[in-house]
């Protein structure tokens, strides 16, 4: 999952990046409205966290422009002016959620998880796929009740595929959604991680669709 953080306060920006990275997200950041708008307009993020009080271009305008050019990425707005009038204005501009400052990081992470889930059409915080079960709250994957130990990159890959189970996920899509902007996109790491994952879970869960990408199979054997 790839997240964009647009926040001009350096410390808060750093804290957001740390917390989101620890929770298994690939994080890009922008510290002003123009940069934020550009990134959100060109990169395929899963969630965008947008502060409303930004230099160069304010958050509401950034959000309105994204929506006008049909960018449907879920956006959570951060606002210090958390009166209802501001909240209403933010939601009307196209936000999907809001968080009033000051907030606890756990609250933010919960909102991000909810938005990711909502965008991929899952109602519950636990996602099941055949023998696999992903608990988005604790970032843990179990297979037939047994916890699987995953590295951060392996988790990101599997979590993304589980959020989008039932459809074919291309290699490009995986690269775009799992790594930060400055990642070297020509490497073969996706294949490497798929290979590692296949050793940790039943081998036929991740199926290769020739020429298109990968798909999770619901019909994999239970055990």
């Amino acid at each position, binding site marked *: 999952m790839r997240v964009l953080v647009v926040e001009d*306060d350096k*410390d*808060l920006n750093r*804290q957001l990046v740390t*917390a989101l990275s620890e929770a298994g997200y690939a994080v890009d950041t922008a510290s002003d409205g123009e940069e934020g708008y550009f990134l959100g307009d060109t990169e395929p993020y899963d969630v965008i966290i947008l502060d409303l*009080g930004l230099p160069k271009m304010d958050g509401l305008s950034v959000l309105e422009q994204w929506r006008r050019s049909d960018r449907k990425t879920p956006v959570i707005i951060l606002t*210090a*002016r958390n*009166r*209802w*009038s501001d*909240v*209403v204005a933010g*939601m*009307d501009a196209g936000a*999907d*959620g*809001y968080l*009033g*400052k*000051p*907030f*606890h*990081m756990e*609250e933010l992470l919960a909102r991000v998880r*909810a938005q990711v889930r*909502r965008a991929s059409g899952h*109602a519950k915080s636990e996602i099941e796929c055949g023998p696999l079960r992903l608990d988005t709250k604790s970032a843990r994957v179990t297979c037939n009740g047994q916890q699987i130990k995953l590295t951060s990159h392996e988790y990101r890959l599997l979590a993304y595929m589980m959020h989008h189970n039932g459809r074919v996920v291309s290699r490009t899509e995986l690269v775009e959604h799992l790594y930060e902007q400055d990642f070297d996109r020509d490497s073969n790491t996706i294949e490497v991680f798929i290979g590692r994952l296949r050793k940790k879970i039943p081998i036929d869960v991740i199926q290769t669709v020739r020429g298109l990408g990968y798909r999770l199979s619901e019909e994999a054997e239970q055990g």
Partner: protein
Amino acid sequence: MRFNSLAFRLFITAAAWTLLVLPLAGVVIFGLHRSDVLSTFDNRLQRIVNEITVDSMGQPEKGAVVPNNTYESLFEVTQSGWYWQIKPLDEADGRMLVSPSLATAALPLPVANGIVPDASGARWMTARGPRGEPLRLVEVIDTLGHEPDQPRYSIVVAGPLDWSERQISEFRTRLTIALALAGIGLLAVTLFQVRFGLLPLRQIELGLANIRAGAATRLEGELPVEIEPLQTELNALIRSNQEIVDRARTHVGNLAHALKTPLTVVTNEVRGEKTGLGAKVAEQAQIMKDSVQHYLERAQIAARTGVIGRVTPVAAVVGPVVRTLERIHEDRYVSIAVECPADARFQGERQDLEEMLGNLLDNACKWARHTVTLSVEVRPATERGRKRRLAITVADDGPGLTEEQRARIGKRGLRLDETKPGSGLGLSIVIELAQSYQGSCALAASPKGGLAVHLDLPAA
């Protein structure tokens, strides 16, 4: 016209003056006219008596003769009220000449009644005639041929007083009617003058009512020079009031922004620290966070309640707030049923209504099982002179609160359940906002089992 009003003062002084002056003028005019009528009458009598004297006394050799000219045809009509009489004074049995009208009667002699003559030698008195009618008598005493050694005669001419009295009383009636009409006319003109003169003040009154009702933002219209400065100053005052409010609101908003971001950083920086400095900072940051929230929210209320003339259509606020909450609580599958008449208008700031409805509906959405209902009702004024009220009820079908919980909630920062997100200030800010609008916020049990919050606010 109210008792304590400029119009009443102006009218009552003008009316008092009119009511005082007109009767006085009446009395004076009547007096003048009366004396004029009487003196004209006297002049006529005097002329007649003089001519009769000349006619009848002119020939000493014939003695007193009947005057050949009648001067007044009524001397010929019996008991007409017009009489003359020539009576010798020195011969006790001398022949007395009388007008045919007097027949066998006789007129009293002023000289015999001790009346003193005036400068022209005439004696005046009033007496009763043969019919008992009031008469004005004038008597001249002369001698035959005006010779001093000739016998003296008393020549008396009488005219009916009731004739002139009738004339006078007729005049009095006409005068009274004319003056009464003039009085009524004057009062009507005064009334018009007062109304017309004070029209600009009425215009100001309407203008202020419009401002208060939110239909206008300044005092409009062209006013007379005397009160134009008032209009200018008032408009400047309204504008500066609005500017001060806006500035205060901006500053409060900026302060909130400036404080809340660092607070977020501090809070998250020491997250999870259980010992020493970290724990202390976390604890103090929480206190700061609560204070910032509490006082800044209230500063914004205070910044807005003094504003005159803001009117907010309720439906225009309900729509966006409900839409927003439905999106925020999308995962909870709660539906919000709204019942709001299109003409319901709140006498106050849009932001305040948004804040109250937002907080109440947000709370209700957090606790509701399936549905939240919002109903808005416009209640007619209960007493004369009072405004209409808005009755807003937000109810949910959640677990609700016990009576004891309902009594405790609303105190500052109190949260009954720490597991639900929110600052816990929501309800208390709603209560304070409602109170600042002379309204109220009451908690009750909803018929569907949950909590029902009743808001009472001024309608416009």
